[in-house]
């Protein structure tokens, strides 16, 4: 793998879109097993919060095929930009209860900066470009509805372009 990193060859990211939950420990182990060259593993887990008790569940709709494709494109770009030894991205769909996992990014590298930045980059672009939509189900059976995209998310993604 050392030779690969030096020759500029890039890793192939693992991307999964699934209804089932994921196990963070298991996913970290998958990237690190049998390796001695990894100095940093950064994990980001996005969870469903209850919005101070108002939210009963989130329903995540996705565009099958494009969801995997778009996350894969972003992940390959991350692997081009940073010298990663491994990158895993898992995004769930369907109904998700408060406290449950939604998304996981695991970035591994020789040094911490690449792993931190790649995970951060991955999440910023996943939020603005991966075809998923959240619908809120409220605890009081009241309004709820589709979550609106935030301009702040576009600003976060824009941080990575230009100098």
């Amino acid at each position: 793998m050392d030779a690969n990193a030096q020759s500029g060859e890039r890793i192939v990211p693992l991307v999964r879109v699934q209804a089932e939950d994921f196990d963070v420990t298991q996913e970290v182990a998958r990237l690190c097993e049998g390796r001695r060259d990894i100095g940093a593993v950064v994990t980001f887990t996005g969870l469903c919060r209850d919005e101070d008790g108002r939210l009963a569940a989130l329903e995540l709709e996705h565009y099958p095929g494009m969801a995997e494709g778009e996350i894969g494109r972003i992940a390959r770009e991350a692997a081009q930009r940073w010298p990663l030894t491994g990158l895993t991205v898992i995004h769930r769909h369907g109904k998700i209860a408060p406290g449950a996992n939604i998304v996981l990014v695991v970035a591994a590298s020789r040094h911490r900066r690449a792993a931190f930045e790649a995970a951060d980059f991955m999440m910023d672009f996943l939020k603005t470009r991966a075809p998923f939509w959240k619908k809120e189900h409220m605890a009081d059976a009241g309004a709820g509805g589709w979550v609106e995209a935030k301009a702040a998310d576009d600003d976060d993604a824009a941080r990575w372009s230009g100098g």
Partner: protein
Amino acid sequence: MKVRYFAWVRERIGLEEETVEVPGNVATVSDLIGWLSERDEGYAAAFVEPEVIRVAIDQTHVEHDAPIGKASEIAFFPPMTGG
């Protein structure tokens, strides 16, 4: 071509997907939005603010000025809120 709708675009139109025969003068995504909007109130409601609608041709993001000529699948959806 196959047209797919997601999230509130899907709800307002009342369809997940359909196959449409597009007239020859409908050349771009923007033309297609205009043409679909005239079909009924549901379509009109879905595309009432066309500038917020995101579009993918064959599962790749495109802008509204993209030509639709060679598309086999076009999807319309709101700004994404995953993650």
